[in-house]
């Protein structure tokens, strides 16, 4: 049984031991990225070996959201946690491509794929 909780716009799920899925339920811009940053920091503790960021409900992200994920990726590298992004909309992917960050992240199509990776 997955353990589920949420902040104001981020669903947090633990589908299996050591795996956390964060699913923002709205666009990630300068007004919301601080909350995403806080939640990622809180969830990335020593018991977590994989952090999945599910962007299915995110139809827009700006560079503050990108910066948050870059920081998360760096911290994940330091703590031996795997960070995987899934369900990315084409418009959001375009922003990653413009910033030439699409190859920096592990990006997969579905949440299941992200969890099993």
């Amino acid at each position, binding site marked *: 049984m997955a353990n589920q909780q949420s902040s104001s716009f981020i669903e947090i799920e633990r589908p299996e031991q050591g795996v956390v899925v964060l699913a923002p339920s709205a*666009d990630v*811009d*300068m*007004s919301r990225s601080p909350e995403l940053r806080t939640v990622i920091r809180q969830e990335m503790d020593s018991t977590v070996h994989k952090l999945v960021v599910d962007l299915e409900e995110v139809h*827009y992200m*700006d*560079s*503050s959201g*990108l*910066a*948050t994920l*870059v*920081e998360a990726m*760096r911290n994940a590298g330091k703590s031996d946690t795997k960070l995987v992004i899934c369900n990315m909309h*084409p*418009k959001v992917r*375009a*922003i990653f491509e*413009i*910033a*030439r*960050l699409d190859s*920096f992240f592990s990006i997969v199509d579905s949440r299941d794929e992200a969890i099993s990776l």
Partner: protein
Amino acid sequence: MQIKKMIVKSQSILKWVSMQNRPEIELKLTSDPMYLCGARELVGCIARRIGFDDMECSKISLAVDEALCNIIRHGYNKAFNKPIWIGITPIKPTSEYIGGIEITIEDEAKQVDPKVMKGRNLEDIKPGGLGVHIISEVMDEVRYEKRDPVGMRLVMIKRATRTEESPRLSGQQSLCIKSHSHSTSHTSS
């Protein structure tokens, strides 16, 4: 009496000239990130009406969002009650372009030398500093100016060219466009 008439006439001419130089749509907002979504919606909506496809509208909105974020973060040092003005003017079609959009963003923030407004090296992957790069990547023309007497002005232009196959659907004239710098095409009625 004659001189008075001439003064009134020249004043109305000046007013007319001034009106001609104003954007067709103007929005004033305070530097609160909460209002970014409203600015994006407005710009995206106008861009769509001009004829840009969904992806291009999203990118144009992104450029505006990044410009506003830069003003809030760097210009106003995250003070959320300062003024920002957005001006939008559709660019009329020419033989080369089916149209475009000119967006002007003005503030009363500290002035900086426009020459220093350059994107950073993207090889160095780190959080932050992407806004200027994104703006220049998305828009066809980008110009930073010092605003008189205070603040900065950013002028951004995006044009759309007609593709070879401009179809007609259901008897209505359709637009099949691609942006000046990218090859995305789209059909809308």
